[in-house]
């Protein structure tokens, strides 16, 4: 049936650094050699941390852990673009972003070791707690950013989530509010192509996630999520736009989850080794390394030193985590409300008595 066309839309894609480490200088963001080295060092640190965390889980020293492996460029490039006064709202996988944002690694481990103190952010650090229920944090970020806008603060909220999260109602409701009220928020979607065992083709019939932004009347972009420069540049642009009153942006980082979903998962049950290998050559760290080598920013010695320092820092973090005294039983009750109501006093009292009866 012939119809009039009343609207047209486009979905853009950004890659700066290709798989061989070749850079499109025209697209290259404004980064000094020192900054590029810092990005690299963060990526090595996060990967080292991540490997260690998986091992700690295998040894029973922490609980279930959700690895970053493969997504370092997406997490680090984006977090690196943020200002301290911006707020970050993570899912459960943003261990890398947390580290870039200054959260002590010992804290991150403490969280995965089943201790709420791992989410007791140091004062002045604007990182929200881990969100386990997929997509729910999208709304919190929109609300936070709205609060900044109301108070005319030049802050932005950035919210991380995965491809799976785009199927949730809360994602939709948050995106829609952000569009209507021009909220200063950046939606940072790491499309790692899997939601546990569900591939992206089973998650949505849309060919890109970026095009979802069209439904909400604002800008959506897809970037190479294994290209730290592209991620950094897109995020920085989006943050600046938001800070300048330009409203929200949706960024789809096309990347790949190289590890299992969590340490409780076995990805070999549902995806082929070939697929994983095809992504291994797109490794975000190796790509950056090649680029840096070409620019004289990387040498074997430097590489070895960075690795060594990372291991040392992670070792210390593990030590610190494990030296943390056990949480107190009272902590179960203490933080339910600002003031403990009578019924909680009684429940705590009963528990204390049961414990002193010495049966636990």
């Amino acid at each position, binding site marked *: 049936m012939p119809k009039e066309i009343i609207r047209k839309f486009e979905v853009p894609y950004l890659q700066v650094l290709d798989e061989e480490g070749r850079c499109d200088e025209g697209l290259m963001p404004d980064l000094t050699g020192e900054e590029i080295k810092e990005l690299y060092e963060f990526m090595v640190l996060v990967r080292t941390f991540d490997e260690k965390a998986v091992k700690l889980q295998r040894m029973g020293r922490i609980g279930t852990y959700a690895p970053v492996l493969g997504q370092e460029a997406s997490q680090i490039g984006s977090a690196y673009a943020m200002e301290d006064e911006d707020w970050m709202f993570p899912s459960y996988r943003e261990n890398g972003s947390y580290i870039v944002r200054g959260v002590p690694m010992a804290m991150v481990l403490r969280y995965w070791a089943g201790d709420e103190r791992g989410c*007791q952010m140091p004062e002045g650090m604007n990182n929200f707690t881990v969100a386990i229920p997929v997509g729910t944090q999208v709304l919190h970020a929109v609300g936070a950013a709205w609060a900044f806008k109301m108070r005319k603060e030049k802050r932005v909220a950035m919210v991380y989530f995965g491809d799976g999260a785009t199927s949730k109602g809360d994602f939709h409701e948050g995106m829609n509010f952000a569009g209507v009220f021009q909220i200063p928020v950046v939606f940072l979607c790491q499309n790692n192509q899997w939601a546990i065992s569900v591939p992206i083709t089973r998650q949505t019939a849309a060919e890109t996630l970026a095009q979802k932004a069209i439904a909400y009347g604002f800008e959506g972009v897809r970037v190479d999520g294994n290209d730290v420069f592209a991620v950094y540049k897109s995020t920085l642009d989006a943050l600046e736009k938001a800070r300048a009153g330009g409203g929200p942006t949706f960024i789809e980082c096309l990347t790949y989850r190289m590890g299992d979903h969590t340490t409780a998962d076995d990805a070999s049950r549902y995806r082929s080794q070939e697929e994983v290998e095809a992504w291994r050559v797109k490794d975000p760290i190796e790509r950056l390394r090649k680029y840096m080598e070409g620019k004289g920013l990387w040498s074997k010695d430097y590489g070895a030193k960075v690795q060594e320092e990372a291991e040392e820092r992670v070792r210390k973090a593990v030590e610190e985590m494990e030296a943390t005294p056990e949480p107190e039983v009272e902590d179960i009750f203490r*933080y339910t409300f*600002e003031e403990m109501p009578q019924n909680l006093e009684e429940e705590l009292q009963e528990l204390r008595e049961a414990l002193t009866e010495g049966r636990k």
Partner: protein
Amino acid sequence: MTKINIVQAVNMALREEMARDKSVVVLGEDVGRNGGVFRATEGLLQEFGEERVIDTPLAESGIVGISIGMAVCGMRPVAEIQFDGFLYPALDQIISHAGRIRTRSRGRYRVPLVVRAPCSGGIHAPEHHSESPEAYFAHTPGVKVVMPSTPYDTKGLLAAAIRDPDPVIFLEPKKIYRAFKEEVPEGDYTIPLGEAKVVREGSALSIITWGAMVPLCKTVAEEAKGKGIDAEVIDLRTLSPLDTKSIKASVEKTGRAVIVQEAPRSCGLGAEVAALIGEKSLLYLKAPIERVAGFDTPFPLYRLEKYYLPDAARVMRAVDRVMRY
């Protein structure tokens, strides 16, 4: 002092709290231009502007989830959910987040949020507009639950809820929104959350109730007086955490209890009250506790509504049974 009704008391509380504290914002469906479908937010948009009185898109999980984010970042949002039955899409955000963020962050983040909604039946409304969902919230850790039954209490409790550092679900019995007026002072007062009120003193039995059932129970108590039964009536007001002390004191005085709730009977708040009495005051009981409640069925469309709602006859039967025992 002017005499106002409950919905006007809501309005007055909102207005005064917004004037007192810049961080208070009101948001929800139709709360701005239209002043709310019950006019609870009437005039606020004109007085405080679009930035603080926000007509939102139609999305309850969004309204509450976004309010949580605002609250974490220093605002004091008062979200209106248009009707009781539309609280359900927001349950996930309330259960999974509002009630847990303080705990999850070990006190680093807090959620000073109020979610207001009209509740309960009696106005011949369409389906889903007559729900009494308080037990869902009372079973949810980390949130407080309030349901006033008079204009004076409404204003004081809503002001207290807005100032509370933790999330409060504030349920307003729509049937009595305009049922009567009483003197409500302008200006600052609060009624502490967590305190029940003895609305009628008596010695023969304790009728424990809340919301739109309070005036009904007062009527029944007056009627019972004619039969020589001196009933005490307690309005719980705050439904979570419960004022166990007041319940205990009353039942230990009277030795008999009738609990009246509009919500479905099974696992309702009345069950908790009955269980508490059984635990704390068993030896004082001269008769089994009676619960008069909504049925364990969906709330019917309005032709049958009057049969669903506890009424004077059903409450009186319970009173009689308890007294006869």
